[in-house]
């Protein structure tokens, strides 16, 4: 399952994809049993037994991207869990080392765990079903995986995979981001470490909130790596509420049919008439300023009357500023330039705040390729994003698999039930599309944009 495909302004001229994905992996011990060969679903990244009619497809996600695992030399799971192949690439080494450095805190957690048996109660898991005092066993039966696929110009694709154990959210012993960022040991909490999806979430949040919550800038490698991250946006993704709101605002604005101004040419060609004695215009008012046309105005410009094609007359200094914002007649809405019409019955009654108008403007212009990828839960960008990560496993796949515990796997169902969200670079045309497909019923409900 490809969860998220980051397009990052990354290093030098390369176009890498960072693919975050998670797996729920059934124990290979089952796999090696003498049952008939299992199949592998490339959407779920999981072994399964497919439904065979009409074509083999995954019973879980209905994907037909399934593979029968009969050739041990070509095990699709190899791609999933990989060999951690760090290519001999200085740039990537730097990135990988930095990432590993952060994730390495996780290793400490694990080496500590025998001393501090994970008292981590998994809310969804009956304690009796998995004695937590079993030393050396991971608390969770999941892994997350960060895989970085990167193809150098013309060169071979390179893959870096790192993975780690998962700790599920909602546990009081899991440190908050601020606690995590401060890296201050909390003696009262022996299990004061995070890993897996939460680690990623914190990591990305800290990237997004540079400098970090403890006032330190993140490591240099991250600064160079994610130049766009400081605004809570990294490429096409957002990592905090503010950035999400900005995206929502953009979406709303792009959906909003703004009035189309008149061109200079159109305005210059409008018939002008200088008031004279006896002109019938002197009987009329300018609808903008509500003053009657008069020969005795202080401003000589107000002797110049512009009559729109709909025959409505205005003072030139009254109508011109209006036409610069909307090429319509203020009185009858005659359109000098075709205007967007926004009474789409499928549009819903929504509003989005634009508290940072200027900032948004700047951001918009500086990131014209920003894509409309958002989730519909206001504060839930992470929860959606990382729900996928919670179907997790121990860091060491083989080791963990042999000790996998049914009870641990339950949280994965939440993530699993969601359809995989894959996005790929898409031109900004989506900004201009509108209509029911783009604007379902609730603000931020952009399921349709997640194609």
């Amino acid at each position, binding site marked *: 399952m490809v969860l998220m495909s980051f397009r990052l302004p990354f290093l030098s001229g390369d176009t890498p994809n960072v693919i975050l994905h998670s797996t729920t992996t059934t124990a290979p011990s089952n796999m090696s049993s003498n049952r008939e060969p299992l199949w592998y679903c490339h959407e779920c990244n999981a072994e399964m037994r497919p439904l065979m009619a009409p074509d083999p497809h995954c019973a879980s996600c209905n994907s037909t991207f399934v593979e029968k695992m009969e050739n041990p030399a070509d095990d699709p799971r190899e791609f999933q869990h990989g060999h951690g192949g760090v290519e001999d690439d200085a740039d990537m080494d730097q990135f990988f080392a930095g990432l590993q450095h952060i994730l390495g805190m996780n290793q400490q957690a694990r080496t500590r765990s025998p001393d501090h048996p994970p008292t981590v109660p998994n809310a969804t898991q009956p304690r009796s079903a998995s004695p937590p005092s079993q030393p050396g066993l991971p608390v969770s039966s999941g892994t997350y995986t960060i895989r970085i696929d990167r193809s150098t110009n013309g060169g071979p694709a390179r893959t870096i995979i790192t993975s780690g154990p998962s700790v599920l959210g909602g546990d009081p012993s899991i440190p908050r981001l601020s606690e995590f960022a401060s890296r201050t040991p909390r003696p009262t909490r022996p299990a004061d470490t995070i890993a897996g999806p939460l680690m990623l979430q914190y990591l990305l949040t800290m990237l997004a909130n540079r400098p970090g919550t403890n006032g330190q800038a993140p490591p240099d490698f991250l600064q160079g790596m994610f130049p766009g991250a400081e605004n809570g946006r990294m490429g096409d993704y957002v990592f905090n509420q503010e950035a999400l*709101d900005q995206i929502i*605002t953009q979406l*709303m*604005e792009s*959906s*909003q*049919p*703004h*009035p189309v101004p008149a061109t200079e040419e159109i305005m210059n060609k409008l018939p002008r008439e200088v008031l004279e004695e006896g002109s019938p215009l002197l009987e009329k008012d300018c*609808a*903008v*300023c*509500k*003053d009657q046309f008069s020969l005795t105005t202080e401003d000589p410009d107000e002797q110049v009357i512009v009559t729109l094609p709909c025959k409505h007359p205005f003072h030139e200094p*009254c109508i011109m*500023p*209006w036409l610069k*914002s909307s090429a*319509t007649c*203020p*009185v009858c*809405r005659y359109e000098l330039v075709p205007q967007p019409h*926004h*009474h*789409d*019955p499928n*549009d*819903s*009654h*929504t*509003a*989005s*705040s*634009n*508290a940072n*108008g200027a900032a948004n403007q700047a951001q918009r212009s500086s990131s014209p390729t920003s894509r409309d990828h958002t989730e519909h839960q*206001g504060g839930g960008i992470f929860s959606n994003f990382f729900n996928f990560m919670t179907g997790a496993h121990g860091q060491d796949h083989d080791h963990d698999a042999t000790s996998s515990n049914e009870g641990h796997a339950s949280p994965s169902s939440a993530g699993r039930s969601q359809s995989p969200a894959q996005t790929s670079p898409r031109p900004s045309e989506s900004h201009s599309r509108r209509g029911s497909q783009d*604007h379902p*019923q*609730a*603000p*931020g409900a952009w399921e349709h944009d997640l194609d």
Partner: protein
Amino acid sequence: MAAVSTRRLQKELADIKNHGTPTGITLLKADDFETWYLTLEVLGESLYKGEVFALKFRFEPGYPISSPAVQFVVDDKFRAPLHPHVYSNGHICASILGTEWSPVLSVISVCITLQSMLASCKDKKRPPDNDRYVAHAPENPKKTQFVYHDDEV
């Protein structure tokens, strides 16, 4: 030279003082040409019978080319009407205050429009996205991009 808005607002104010305001609309406060307050009441049979609301108008120097920022007053004395187009913070989703603003409109014509909007309401309820909007709404409703979806209410 005074802002364009001043001249126009002077004229509107004089008109109000000379000719009065329409039924159910009263000028509460217009001490300057930046912020005005008016009260709004739906007379006759309506879901808002007996309720009095206050409207706050804020004018930019470019008024009437630029639309006024109009919202219902929400304070210890006034409440925003319970209406599908009125958020609990007083912000109003009405196209004439946004993309369909026209410099032909005036303070009084806006009031009449909103009075009519209330009078025709058949279901007193908040907009469906009220909570989310209010949580993040800018102070000035003009900074909100509303999407207008029906002419019914």
